[in-house]
């Protein structure tokens, strides 16, 4: 009940932060979450006070995700929900503000919480809510040339509407890049810079992302990021024509690597919203699969990292070790990736004794192979040389930009959803969270190194402690318009799914927020002042999952959503 009391504290802070103790409704959508609805006029002020209030109690407010929803069919207004994570108090605080049509405007809180920048820009693109006072407004998700005033996630936008290229181009030309002029001038006098495009199609990026890098010689003087090329329109799809039991299979296809964690986060969100009690054995099984996923994801990343450092043998070695994990995943789930295991309310398959034994065997193999090889590889002069002191992200920047996961932990931020907001079976064990302060690429490598070994330990512990029992709770019709937040610690960091249930076991709103969504904005900061040769490894060091980040993007201007198939296949390349 320590947790409940933590949420009480949060509620207390919220109440005293409310302007004049009024102007807001406070509620508890579910365990570990507090919801407050304030008038948009007070929003900025309220957030300021919140930060102060929690600051007094030594807790920091981390911006987790922001969701704009078109509630016009329900109560005729638009609503922006800022989900703030108060990790120290193990609570997600949902701050909602309404805005009436036809021109919904909600003051931007980005000046207070810079990490909110992307969320607000995305909301502006997809739902058409304006955020006056945003320091750097402009398109984030929609391509340049997308017609003004067309907002795909509004309820009056049919999911299967095809927006032909011609129509899309009315608004301007479709450039794969920036429409705005570059910040760094050609520099006639002084030391001029050249623009080096990194991506969308570059051997170092295994997914289409675009970094515009400005160099003087090989010194990087600045960088810009443009992403969201991987258009799949998943949110729209889920909200339009899928049932809650179908969405897990869509959710896990958000990413080709950390798909299962998305499925879990989604299910947790729905279960929380509908107050479904999931049987303990199912929770353990979920945890085991999550850790197995972390194992293969990290091993994959190590491989990619070595590849980018030109150390092919390391690449091969890591992927060879990873193969064992994939085999076990196949044995456990029937699929090389940990796909198809989750349903709302539990899991679909049991881990019987024989499979458990296979897992244990795999763990030994992986632990030995990994430890041995990395032990040698991390001694190699040119390898370590290339990552020590490279791509440093200071703790301050990490906090400011809301970095999550190993990336944040390598910059000295001790945050981990498994500990801060225990889910699945993580409440029953204690998780070691490795933290380093250097903030460079090497630190990120070492943090992940520790995490691999920790995952091995955790899986062993879960297998030991797994109780008998059912696999799935009975799920009846869900109550409509219930809000739920589900979070997991994906291999790359906090993965948050925000759900509003709909009628007849459908979803009214679903917004997954992948960890890379918070980490990518730190890349330009890290690139500045670095050498060009380090750019790829720096970009890779956050283990960016671009397809995760981009999943939500609406109908692809180039193809249009012709086949739901398009929305379902795909997923991450090696980098994500």
């Amino acid at each position: 009940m320590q947790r409940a009391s933590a949420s009480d504290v949060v509620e207390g802070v919220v109440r005293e932060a409310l302007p004049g103790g009024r102007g807001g409704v406070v509620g508890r959508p579910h365990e570990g979450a507090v919801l407050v609805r304030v008038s948009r006029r007070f929003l900025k002020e309220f957030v300021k006070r919140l930060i102060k209030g929690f600051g007094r109690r030594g807790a920091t407010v981390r911006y987790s995700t922001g969701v704009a929803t078109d509630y016009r069919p329900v109560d005729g207004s638009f609503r922006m929900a800022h989900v703030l994570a108060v990790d120290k108090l193990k609570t997600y605080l949902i701050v909602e503000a309404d805005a009436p049509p036809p021109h919904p405007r909600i003051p931007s809180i980005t000046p207070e919480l810079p990490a909110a920048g992307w969320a607000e820009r995305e909301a502006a693109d997809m739902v058409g809510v304006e955020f006056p006072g945003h320091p750097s407004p402009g398109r984030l998700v929609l391509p340049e040339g997308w017609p003004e005033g067309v907002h795909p996630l509004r309820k009056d936008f049919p999911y299967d509407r095809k927006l032909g290229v011609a129509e899309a181009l009315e608004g301007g030309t479709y450039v794969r890049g920036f429409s705005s002029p570059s910040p760094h001038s050609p520099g006639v006098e002084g030391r001029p810079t050249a623009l080096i495009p990194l991506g969308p199609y570059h051997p170092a990026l295994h997914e289409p992302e675009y970094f515009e890098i400005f160099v003087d010689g090989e010194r990087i003087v600045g960088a810009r990021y443009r992403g969201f090329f991987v258009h799949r329109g998943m949110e729209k799809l889920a909200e339009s024509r899928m049932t809650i039991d179908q969405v897990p299979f869509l959710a896990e296809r958000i990413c080709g690597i950390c798909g299962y964690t998305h499925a879990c986060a989604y299910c947790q969100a729905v279960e929380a919203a509908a107050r479904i009690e999931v049987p303990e054995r199912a929770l353990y099984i979920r945890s085991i699969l999550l850790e197995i996923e972390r194992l293969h994801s990290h091993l994959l990343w190590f491989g990619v990292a070595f590849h980018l450092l030109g150390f092919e043998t390391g690449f091969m070695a890591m992927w060879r070790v990873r193969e064992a994990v994939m085999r076990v995943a196949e044995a456990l789930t029937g699929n090389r990736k940990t796909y198809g295991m989750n349903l709302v309310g539990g899991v679909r398959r049991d881990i019987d004794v024989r499979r458990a034994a296979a897992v244990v065997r795999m763990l030994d193999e992986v632990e030995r192979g990994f430890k041995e090889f990395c032990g040698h590889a991390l001694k190699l002069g040119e390898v370590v040389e290339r990552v020590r002191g490279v791509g440093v992200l200071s703790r301050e920047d990490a906090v400011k930009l809301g970095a999550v996961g190993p990336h944040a932990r390598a910059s000295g931020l001790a945050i981990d959803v498994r500990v801060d907001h225990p889910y699945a079976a993580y409440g029953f064990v204690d998780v070691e969270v490795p933290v380093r302060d250097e903030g460079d690429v090497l630190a990120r490598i070492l943090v992940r190194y520790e995490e691999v070994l920790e995952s091995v330990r955790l899986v062993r512990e879960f297998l030991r402690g797994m109780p008998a029992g059912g696999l799935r709770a009975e799920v009846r019709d869900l109550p409509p318009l219930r809000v739920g937040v589900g979070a997991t610690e994906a291999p790359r960091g906090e993965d948050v799914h925000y759900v509003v249930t709909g009628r007849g076991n459908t979803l009214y709103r679903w917004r997954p927020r992948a960890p890379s969504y918070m980490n990518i904005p730190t890349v330009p900061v890290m690139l500045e002042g670095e050498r060009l040769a380090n750019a790829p490894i720096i970009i890779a060091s956050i283990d960016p999952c671009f397809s995760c980040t981009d999943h939500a993007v609406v109908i692809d201007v180039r193809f249009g959503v012709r086949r739901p198939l398009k929305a379902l296949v795909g997923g991450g390349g090696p980098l994500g």
Partner: protein
Amino acid sequence: MSGSAALAVAGAAAANAAFALTLAPLLDGVERKVRARVQRRVGPPVLQTWYDLIKLYRRGFFGLRGCGPFHRAAPALAMGAAVTASAILPTVTGFGAGFAGDLIVLIYLMASVSTITALGAASSGSPYGVVGGWREASLSMASELALAAALAAIACGRGSLLLSSLFPAVRLGAGFRPSSVVAVAAVALVAYADGLRLPFEIPEAEEELAEGVAVEYGGAALALLKHATLVRRLLLTSLLLNLAFPWGWASPVVRAAAFTASLTLESVLCSLTESVCGRGRPAYVMRLLKRVTLASGVALIAACFGF
């Protein structure tokens, strides 16, 4: 010289050139096999590099529109320089076209392979090409420093630049000079570095520069560049072998066999080394080269004082 003799030498030169052209890709194939084995893979067939080259040669030219004619001519010129160098340097047969030039000529021909490559790459407006180009140039500047010192040491010891009187540089007995040993060691390292092997392979860093100097070339042009680079690599090794060991001791056939064998052995050793190296960050590469330069510099000073 008499016509028949000229013919013989011309034949030898042709033989050397043909040898270099054919063997270089084969050796690359061998190296890929070796690296694959270290990575516990089966790896591609030994002829794979040749298959790739042939496929590319068939493709004709793929290149940029509108960045000067030189961009297009560069691969051919590079190949020309490489072949010429291979005709001058004794490899499979004892005497190449040594009458065409001496050590300096040889070095300059080899250097001009990378010079021309860099020029061609930088002529394409591709930022990757240009970056690759200046890396190539910088690397050759750095390795030239070491190589120049080492060769100066050797030449100073011999009082000549003629290949005939320089090979082998290390002579036991009366003509022995300790400096030449150091110098040859330095040459060995430079040959490794200048052969663009890991960790020195920075001009084409695939993950950083997307093949750098080769980025804007395709088809036959790409094949020519790759082939010329491989030939150059083989020549560097051959130069080292010629400097390090005497080869005049055996019948032509035995010599050819022995030379080929040791070339193969050398590239196996190199690829084993490569397989446990990452690509160095440029600063690191340069530091290594500076150390090599230091060594050869010591050799040079020693040589100047007659040791």
